């Protein structure tokens, strides 16, 4: 059971603070924030999501730079509390359309109202947007998404975020459109986060796809929905080790290692024809999470070379080749590479006629950064950098630099070939034809090439 719940801004201010059981002293938010901020003297390490100070257990998750915190004195299930915190953040987002410090501050009374129903005396009652709708009476004050600043300083809290921004719409599930009536629509996003590690010789050491089919429904009257996936989809890789690539390549089937489903999903005919049926609750939720280690073609190949070029000098060449069809374009690509500690200067040379590219040498942490606005499928881009060192390097340069890591987003492309074949909405009348959006996107999770 939970004793307190609060949300702190990144400066440590309480945005909401709710005490459910009165077992933990009021100063807990302060104690918590200090502990998180000064976890290790050198500030290098992040505080773990759960820790204990003087018999009080603190749980926290970071969402868009905000800290969602729960405290308790009891030995509870950590997954339950962390899941709950994440879920509270999601419900708030469903209501407010946009989750940010600003929107939360503007709507804190609504959030209090919601928290009253989500938890009673420390016990979780419900986290369903659907159910909460009938108990929450405040109208959300919607923050205009377009006016939202890019995360800015909040980004420092965004380390390792796996949630993707901006895929689903930034529209509240309860607020009415300015025009009056609600638009009937449903969004199905197939989001795949891929992790690939290339060895220095370009061989794939590990690869994994973590996928989610995410749904956000604005349909009135909760009609039933049928979602059909690839017929050749199979789950669980019977026998053999998971990394036995040869066994699966070429067969063309999509083989998931494992998957799980949202509560509302019924799997009655899943074994037969790979369809999921569900009555989607309001708000955003994952219909299905899946994991795949089957071999796939990595969207980018990275080549990197670092070699000495005279005394106290070296040259770096990074080549990125897009190995997806030319009608697909990746965007917001960032390439990073740690350089030797004794690098003092780096001058860059882009290919002639390069547009929308930017380069930077981060003096403080000795990192090379290369940003590209977009990369069209099939194209190749090269960056050359000349480095100046402050001291003679004795050891092998490749041991002092790298690995190269890359982040990107590729809309309308998914590497697993998992597909939503059709999205059927149980009809209310022949004229009922809501908007259906099925969108695919591939993102880099950990995309690394060793040198």
């Amino acid at each position, binding site marked *: *059971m939970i004793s307190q719940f609060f949300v702190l801004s990144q400066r440590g*201010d*309480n945005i909401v603070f709710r005490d459910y*059981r009165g077992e933990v002293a009021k*100063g807990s938010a*302060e104690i918590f924030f200090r502990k998180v901020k000064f976890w290790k003297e050198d500030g*290098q390490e*992040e505080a*773990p*999501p*759960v820790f*204990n100070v003087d*018999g009080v*257990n603190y749980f*926290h*998750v970071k969402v868009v730079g905000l800290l969602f915190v729960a405290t308790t*004195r*009891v*030995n*509870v*299930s*950590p*997954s*339950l509390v*962390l*899941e709950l915190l*994440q879920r509270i953040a999601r419900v708030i987002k469903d209501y407010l359309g946009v989750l940010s410090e600003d929107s939360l501050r503007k709507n*804190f*009374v609504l959030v*209090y109202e919601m928290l*009253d129903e989500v938890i*009673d005396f420390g016990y979780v*009652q*419900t986290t*369903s947007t659907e159910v909460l709708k009938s*108990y929450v*009476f405040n109208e959300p004050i919607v923050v205009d998404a377009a006016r939202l600043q890019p995360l800015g300083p909040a980004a420092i809290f965004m*380390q*390792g*975020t*796996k*949630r993707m921004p901006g895929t689903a719409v930034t529209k509240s599930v309860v607020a009415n459109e300015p025009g009056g009536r609600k638009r009937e629509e449903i969004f199905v996003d197939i989001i795949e986060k891929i*992790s690939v590690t290339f060895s220095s010789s370009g061989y794939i*050491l590990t690869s994994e796809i*973590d996928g989610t089919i995410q749904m956000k429904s604005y349909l009135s009257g909760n009609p039933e929905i049928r979602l059909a996936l690839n017929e050749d989809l199979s789950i*669980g890789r019977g026998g053999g*080790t*998971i990394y036995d690539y040869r066994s699966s390549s070429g067969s063309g089937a999509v083989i998931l*290692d*494992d*998957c*799980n*489903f949202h*509560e509302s999903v019924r799997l009655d005919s899943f074994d037969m024809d790979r369809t999921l049926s569900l009555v989607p609750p309001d708000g955003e939720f994952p219909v299905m*999470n899946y*994991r795949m280690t089957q071999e796939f073609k990595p969207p980018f190949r990275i080549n990197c070379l670092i070699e000495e070029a005279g005394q106290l000098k070296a040259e770096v060449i990074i080549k990125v080749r897009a190995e997806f069809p030319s009608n697909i374009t990746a965007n917001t690509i960032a390439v990073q590479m740690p350089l030797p500690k004794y690098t003092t200067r780096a001058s860059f040379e882009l290919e002639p006629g390069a547009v929308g590219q930017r380069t930077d040498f981060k003096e403080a942490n000795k990192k090379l950064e290369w940003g590209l606005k977009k990369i069209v499928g099939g194209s190749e881009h090269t960056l050359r950098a000349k480095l100046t060192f402050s001291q003679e390097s004795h*050891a092998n340069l490749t041991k002092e630099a790298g*690995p190269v890591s890359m982040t990107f987003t590729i809309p309308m492309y998914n590497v697993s070939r998992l597909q939503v074949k059709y999205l059927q909405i149980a009809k209310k009348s022949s004229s009922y034809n809501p908007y259906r959006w099925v969108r695919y996107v591939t993102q880099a999770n*950990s995309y*690394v090439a060793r040198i």
Partner: protein
Amino acid sequence: MAPPAQSQRSPSPSQPSGKSEVSDLKLQLRQLAGSRAPGVDDSKRELFKKVISYMTIGIDVSSLFGEMVMCSATSDIVLKKMCYLYVGNYAKVNPDLALLTINFLQRDCRDEDPMIRGLALRSLCSLRVANLVEYLVGPLGSGLKDSNSYVRMVAVMGVLKLYHISASTCIDADFPSILKHLMLHDSDTQVVANCLSALQEIWSAEASTSEEASREREALISKPFIYYLLNRIKEFCEWAQCLVLELVTKYVPSDSSEIFDIMNLLEDRLQHANGAVVLATIRVFLQLTLSMTDVHQQVYERIKAPLLTLVSSGSPEQSYAVLSHLHLLVMRAPYVFSSDYKHFYCQYNEPSYVKRLKLEMLTAVANESNTYEIVTELCEYAANVDIPIARESIRAVGKIALQQYDVNAIVDRLLQFLEMEKDYVTAEALVLVKDLLRKYPQWSHDCIAVVGNISSKNVQEPKAKAALIWMLGEYSQDMQDAPYVLESLVENWDEEHSAEVRLHLLTAMMKCFFKRPPETQSALGAALAAGIADFHQDVHDRALFYYRILRYNVSVAERVVNPPKQAVSVFADTQSSEIKDRIFDEFNSLSVLYQKPSYMFTDKEHRGPLEFADELGNLSIGEAANNVVPTQMVEENDKDLLLTTSEKEETKGSRNNGSAYSVPYDGSSTSVFASQTQIESAVSNPTLAGHSPQASFAIDDLLGLGIPAAPAVLSPPQLKLNTKAALDPSTFQQKWRQLPVALSQEISVSPQGVAALTAPQALLRHMQSHSIHCIASGGQSPNFKFFFFAQKFEESSNYLVECVINTSSAKAQVKIKADDQNTSQDFSTLFESALSKFGTS
């Protein structure tokens, strides 16, 4: 409510510091209180919002209590809610004013809108004012009978709140039995779930004084009730499912078909997207199959994929919680996960708390087939920009090397680390090479060549420097310039800040002196002089001790300071298996994340509502906890390089005795007694010190190393066992859960025994010939696990044994539980003698 620290910080313009704003609000609220002008609710909303926002940031607005209550006469539900929130927050510090609110809350409890009834009831119960409880009973009573499930749901929690304000009022009103009725008959599952939560808390608290409550609490884990919940589990919301599953873990099924029924019923819960449900289900599976070794292994296989999916599908925080559990499982059954090692590779953008866990898992799953790849991967991390992780990675390589797999290749890698010219890499690698040499002295030649090239000036970290000095002393005969390097270190004695390093330097000088006296003598003299003058007590004492023992007799000194060493076979584990088991029993709780059993970090009253099954254990643990902390500290200090492993293992042994659900038994008390007399004799006979091996034992024991009185001659035990003992598995399982561990010890297995274990069945037959019967067994080389039982001749007193045999170390970890604790030592002797004869007869 004390004004929190926010106001101590420099006030930002948006956060007024208090006073004048509050009095301003007061004025405005007063004006609105009586007003019936149109739009007044909107202005009230704005004002209330302001009040709540001040409350949130920690400004004390309790002085507005009267005005807030006056303004609360409204039909606007949003206003009402804000007012309730305010009242709930400040009623406790304003008990007199709180009385003002009772009236309108009670009226709202009778409102025709169920929403208002529920809200009012919730607020009424949240006032937390003791002298107002009389006003709660009536509304609660009708709330529990309300036709609307929302009101009932709120009322049930209200009963629990009442119980916490005034237990007697709650019991006198007979609310628990009303809740029990609701729990068994209400159609709304959330009402049922709330009843369950409330009753667990109430009955657990009452159980110590009321037999009835204790019976009721037991009834919660009775078969009919558990089945009642399990059959409806899908109707509960996901959070309530967790509650139910937690209860099911406490249930002991009567036979294996029941176990399979429950598992089949819950199978699909493993596919739930909510990690909390999955972990709760896994806990049920693991607990149910605890004594069915084979099925237990299958459970591991089954839960692997869902766990890995949870790791990668959630936020990093959720991954961390799941990974911690995976880590626990990996440590228990490394072979199950050894082919999945690539899942534990670190991703560059993961937070360090995740990376650390993964590194530990990689060391745990390393075996003959994957070591090469794992070590290659770890070496990549050693050059990582994240220095703490780089260090951990090097340590991980070392740990794997000490596990004996493919040492050749690893030693090469470690030596490469030494040449990497990054100071932290060198430092970590030195410590590792030192440990490695203690285990594999045969590698000294290769290592020393490389270590000799490292200039002591480039090594600054105390641990690394100590390791380097140890190697210089230990291998001074092979390292050409060892005496001179040591000499230069002695010359800079005053600049050496770490006492640990100075201690090592003294010992290394001694060792070097015994091997190369002419080159070392003068430096040794300087070292001893500096040591005796040292302000640090330990350094001073050691120097003085060396000095005196040298004066007494050089050859005795050599025997004391530098005796021939045996290679260390297994480094002591940092955690006793008892504690690990305890953590495993608390699967799906914070214990797993903290890697500590709950008694180490929670107060007694917060152990959670359903801990009664463990109470027996807790009783003895209460005392044991005091022992555990200091022994752990010993363990910490004990990283002293000079301790040989045999000593370390004994430390561990003594800790086991201290921390394990310590049931005093004859064996241990006699050993304590014996060593005490030895100490006395040592004290009364000071001249003996240094000569008599007996006395030196006594001194060791004084240091807390706890050498057990060796059972040199096993007296024939008087205990007689029933040759035809019988016990069915479920009784065994139940007893195993209920009984505390009477004894736990490590027994060596003869080489013949190890050889004979290629067919584990042989052991079963052998033990049976000694009237010790096997009830379950499993495992793969090198780890085998057996559960045995035996019964006293002509008595129904049972002995239960868990025996884990590791064939590579030829050791058996034995845990004994007994109905009759007094005879457990006798039984243990019998068991040991039976096991030791295995393979020889």
